[in-house]
């Protein structure tokens, strides 16, 4: 492996909410040999439009190349490289830790106070913590929790948005939704 530090880039893609779109994006990354760090997808305020946040390690491929290829997909409405400019990015983690004695319970409570985190479930054996923060802050809290004993963990991957009046939106609404198709609602 190279000594060089990896360069992460965050891309946002507005996509038509149609069957197979996630598959098309995933297939593109695989066949072009682009490395994905994380990929999240969710609805937007527009019916028929979903939004992806993709974090890539651009040491292996130029981020612009990735953006151009993404845009080439017919169902991808718009692509922007967010990490070029100021942006907000958040990762959410649910972390289950062993809290079967007073020491561990105290330690968990203290850590939660230091981070944008809270205890969302607690019992005699374990507690579930939720943190929503920038990726590095989440990493930091996970490191703090390691000695206490993490037994289970899930992270959503990064969602991101450009700061200020740079608005990444589309006027688009699916023409097919007008004729009553996509009755099954949400699919990606």
């Amino acid at each position, binding site marked *: 492996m190279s000594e060089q530090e990896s360069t992460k880039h965050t891309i946002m893609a507005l*996509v*038509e909410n149609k069957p197979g779109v996630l598959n098309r994006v995933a297939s593109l990354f695989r066949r072009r040999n682009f490395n994905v760090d994380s990929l999240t997808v969710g609805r937007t305020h527009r019916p028929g439009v979903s939004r992806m946040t993709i974090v890539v390690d651009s040491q292996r491929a130029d981020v612009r*190349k990735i953006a151009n290829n993404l845009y080439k997909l*017919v169902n*991808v*409405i718009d692509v922007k490289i967010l990490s070029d400019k100021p942006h907000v990015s958040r990762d959410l983690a649910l972390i289950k830790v062993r809290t079967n004695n007073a020491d561990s319970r105290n330690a968990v409570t203290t850590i939660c106070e230091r981070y944008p985190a809270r205890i969302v479930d607690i019992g005699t054996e374990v507690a579930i913590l939720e943190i929503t923060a920038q990726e590095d802050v989440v990493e930091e809290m996970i490191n703090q929790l390691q000695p206490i004993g993490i037994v289970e963990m899930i992270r959503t991957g990064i969602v991101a948005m450009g700061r200020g009046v740079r608005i990444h939106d589309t006027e*688009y609404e699916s023409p*097919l939704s007008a*004729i*009553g198709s996509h009755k099954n609602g949400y699919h990606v």
Partner: protein
Amino acid sequence: MKLTGAEIIMECLLRENVDVLFGYPGGAILPTYDAMTKYPQIHHVLVRHEQGAAHMADGYARATGKVGVAIATSGPGATNLVTGIATALMDSSPIVCITGQVGRAAIGSDAFQETDVTGVTLPVTKHNYLVMDVEELAYTIREAFHIARTGRPGPVLIDIPKDVQIASTEFMYPDGEIILPGYQPPLEANADDVDAATKLINQAKRPVILAGHGIIMSSAMQELRELSERANIPVALTLLGKGGFPESHPLSLGMMGMHGSAACNWAIQESDLLIALGMRFDDRVTGNLDTYAINAKKIHVDIDPSELNKNVKVDIGIAGDLKTVIRQLLPQIQPSNHSEWIGRIRNWQEDANQRDIIHAETNSTLLAAQVINDLWKYTDGNAITVTDVGQHQMLEAQYYPHERPQTMITSGGLGTMGFGLPAAMGAKIGVPDQEVWAIVGDGGFQMTLFELATAVQENIDINIAIINNGFLGMVRQWQEFFYEERYHATPMHNPDFCKLAEAYSIPSMRVTNREQVEESVKFARSIKGPTLIDYVVEKHDIVYPMVPAGADLHNMILRPTTQTDEE
């Protein structure tokens, strides 16, 4: 009016001006085959294997500029199309493939002849669809044709479950605007790029234009010629660019790349400005990227933005339609003669001329290059040639100069053996008033020779030239150069091709010496319907020049100047 899904498919095809379908029936597509009986305006060509259908649609598309259509059933029918679809994708050929799928309720149940066709073809199509609602069918077909033919053209597949073909609905053709927010092919260059590009062109001392398939697909032949002539800029062609610039033109450098002309490759390596138009710096064109035209600035115009800076870092990348962009550039191009530069190129060309095998004395053997050059001569250089893949393909590129677009059809990007015969048939159906020659090797021909039956059934008037050396010649050539002449798995024990033709009732002729070539062309031309000529050529011939894979473009293996050098 209420129509079934199958009838809607046919109605939509009519409105897309489809006059021929290449296909093969089967269970899941039968409703559509039944509906075809009501639409005699659309002719159906029954192929012998679905791969042939895809290649025919491709050949038809490349000869006419229209969208070619292939149709097949679910499962194996659809998977047999895949090679043809991948071929069309790599060469940006507009085809639409319609496949039947098992009924909606059975999808995902591993039903008989079920395959996830949209999944299988996802990486080899420009776009694909699974139509789950008859209401969406008409719009989807319209969208599919639009995507196939616009922007950077390519194959689009529509998978239609059997019960969607049977279901009926009120048919209204959606002839309004196509709304595809994520699909807006770029058209023109911005003014800054035009200024910067023309500035580079006007300053260049040793410019070369690299012209690719995009010239033909954008119909920018006239614009290219004006650009080249105004500033005396020589034009190098890619394999698929052949026909985009007349090869008899004094500024034509012929083909570039691995088996390109030596003068052309040297000119590229020595140039101070490459103007790449509608080509994609394929590895077969550039050789070693680290030493590729290192002193040249580079301007790249392509309709596909993802091609810019993909393989070669360029100084100015313009995403746009070539015809439009060249027209934008032209007014600012200053006349120039580049006489010193052209003079240097002439010297290189002179050297190449001396080495040319065409001038070699041959004893009794027939050389493939001579056959192809004679075919050019006796067809007045005016035929549509459709090649297969291998030595004969490269020799065609070298020895059959083309003057006009859409006359040279070949599988360039994917290098699909078996392409030649079916693609030639599709081309002939598309342009019936033109002379079409399938120039194929004995290896590739045998990959799809069963389409001879289709040619007979449809009485397709093509001439098939088998360049028969009894070897997988291009592989043999690599074995000779790079594998110490271990000719493993390349000698071919072939059938008697003339007897084979006879079994199909196809008139044929065997040619073993050069004097017979003219007669064979006359013979082929005299017959209405398919003919087959078996040119038995020298087994151990080599295609020169050759840039070994990954080597520097200027370091070519050249043909020795005389035959005695070789021994």
